[in-house]
């Protein structure tokens, strides 16, 4: 098992390097002056531009630039953004909010998705099943920003159950509505995935055995059917954690959450290359680690999978 973890971890490295290289290349090497955003409409004098290019290693050949950047990432020295603030400090400041938001969304979508999917799968073809299926299709189809505005307007503005926007403190209660919006689309996917998986497994031999040896229905469903049906769901949830971090761009924008997504959006609008690259690198890292975690969860969920 330990060897398996090490091997999976080593496999992550090329993916991580490739993805960061791709982003770095796109941001700094496509035609157009990467420092133009600092200077604004009027432009800087050539001396200032040269100084800036030197400060951000842009005067070096591309490979040296990238290696210097990697060195920075590995030593947790991400440099400064275009307004001169250390990037690591900014990320440390906004990350907890986004992490809270993403984990809340993940919990909401996992709990509700699995419960609804389980019930729908066990009652395949009944009214509950078909209505939940139709509902999930609608939730998938409505884009997250439409959904976000709708809920912000109905719950925040009309009913006033909660603040329509989130303050700087980002308390649990304030983040609940954005988390629901963020998790809603994936909730529909989790539900459909669980349902399909349950329907597949409910007729499996080991389920019949479990029933035949006299286990209670509850135990059969929870321990035998559900546990074995969760594997595709867990895969999805792991991949989704990364997507939630990225998807937070829209949700954080609507609800004015001061998180990673909002910071990335501002950096993109300002053309702040170093900031964009650092945040995306950070998100890629989280995405890769989440996928690693999923692989390790498999072994625990499915006793048939054993890693040599």
């Amino acid at each position, binding site marked *: 098992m330990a060897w398996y973890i090490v091997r999976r971890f080593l496999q992550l490295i090329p993916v991580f390097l490739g993805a960061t290289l791709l982003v770095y290349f796109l941001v700094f090497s496509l035609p157009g002056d990467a420092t133009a955003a600092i200077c604004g409409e009027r432009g800087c004098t050539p001396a200032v531009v040269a100084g800036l290019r030197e400060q951000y290693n842009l005067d070096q050949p591309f490979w040296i630039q990238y290696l210097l950047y990697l060195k920075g990432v590995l030593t947790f020295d991400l440099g400064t953004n275009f307004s001169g603030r250390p990037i690591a400090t900014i990320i440390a400041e906004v990350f907890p909010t986004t992490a809270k938001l993403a984990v809340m969304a993940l919990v909401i979508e996992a709990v509700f998705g699995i419960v609804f999917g389980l019930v729908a799968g066990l009652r395949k073809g009944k009214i509950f099943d078909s209505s939940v299926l139709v509902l999930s299709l609608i939730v998938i189809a409505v884009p997250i920003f439409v959904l976000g505005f709708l809920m912000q307007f109905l719950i925040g503005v009309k009913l006033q159950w909660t603040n329509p926007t989130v303050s700087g403190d980002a308390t649990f209660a304030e983040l609940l509505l954005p988390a629901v919006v963020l998790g809603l689309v994936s909730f529909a996917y989790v539900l459909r995935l669980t349902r399909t998986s349950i329907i597949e497994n409910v007729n499996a031999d080991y389920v019949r055995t479990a029933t035949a040896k006299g286990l209670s229905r509850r135990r059969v469903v929870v321990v035998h059917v559900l546990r074995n049906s969760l594997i595709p769901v867990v895969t999805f949830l792991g991949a989704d954690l990364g997507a939630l971090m*990225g998807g937070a761009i*829209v949700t954080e924008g609507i609800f004015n959450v001061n998180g990673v997504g909002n910071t990335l959006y501002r950096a993109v609008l300002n053309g702040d290359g170093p900031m964009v690259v650092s945040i995306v690198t950070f998100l890629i890292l989280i995405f890769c680690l989440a996928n690693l975690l999923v692989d390790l969860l498999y072994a625990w969920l499915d006793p048939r999978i054993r890693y040599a």
Partner: protein
Amino acid sequence: MPEPTSSNAPASTSTPMSAEGLVGSEPQAPLATEAPTPVGRTKKSAYPIEHFVADPDETPVRATDSAVSDAAPRSLWGEAWRSLRRQPLFIISAVLILAVIFVALFPGLFTSEPPNENCLLENSDGGPAPGHPLGFTVQGCDILSRVVHGTQSSLTVGLFATIGVVLIGGLIGALAGFFGGWIDAVLARIGDIFFALPLILGAIVVVQLPVFQQNRNVWTLVVILVAFGWPQIARITRAAVIEVRNADFVTAARSLGVSPLGALVKHVIPNALAPVIVIATISLGTFIVAESTLSFLGIGLPPDVMSWGNDIFSAKPSLRSNPMAIFWPGLALSITVLSFIMLGDALRDALDPKARKR
């Protein structure tokens, strides 16, 4: 070896049944009380009693179990079309999609109001008025007209991004799956790298670069969406091609002298197309959402292009006073995406034999 031969095997299996039958129907008292064991196990009974053993049931196999069909076997597509025609999900989504395409092609038929030319600021955020059933945007333009005219750009982006993704992702996936080996390894690693960068995230980073900012239009957006959207189709195609690659008909074609590439194009790809079509249909909806999300963030289509995403973006500030300006383009967007997702669902049911079994 005293193994039970084939001749006495049916007898031994049929005896318990017939013994039961005897107990129930005929008054053969001694046999009924005697245990059934001697009847089944030994050929010669120790008791001088006549045995009544029912004739073994002759089950006519052919009549019930054979599936005789004189009709020519239908192709996967013919079969799919037959099951699709009867599916309400397919009919609803197909009608909706045709309607959306019709609106995109002939917007003039659905509204006589020009979308941009007749905007009066005195109408800003106004409610429904005669001739303007959905009210006005913040610029005083007719919402209905803008929603109708915005159909075209959303649909164009979705359609061409899907075509691009199917061509590029399909090609890469087919090559990786068919040739395997190092080609597969390299292409799979490249796919993994792109997979680590979600579509929207990658698009947001790239769309704001100077080179794209200077030529913002429908086509650059399509290029960006294709650049980050192809790995999914590539994975699906690869899996489908691997499944077909070793089929007998491919081996037959190869042994008849068809070149590897010829076999791939003529035999493998047509048979691996079904899952690709399903995913492509669903991604058409995804790309429409991606376009509108980017436009909604203000970095997608340029403001002079009419699209649902742009309209939602410009209606954002007046959400509290005029939520309908967000609601209508949002509704149009959702219905369009919904119909493509429903179509994909229906196609999956029809084309995926594994799903059909259930």
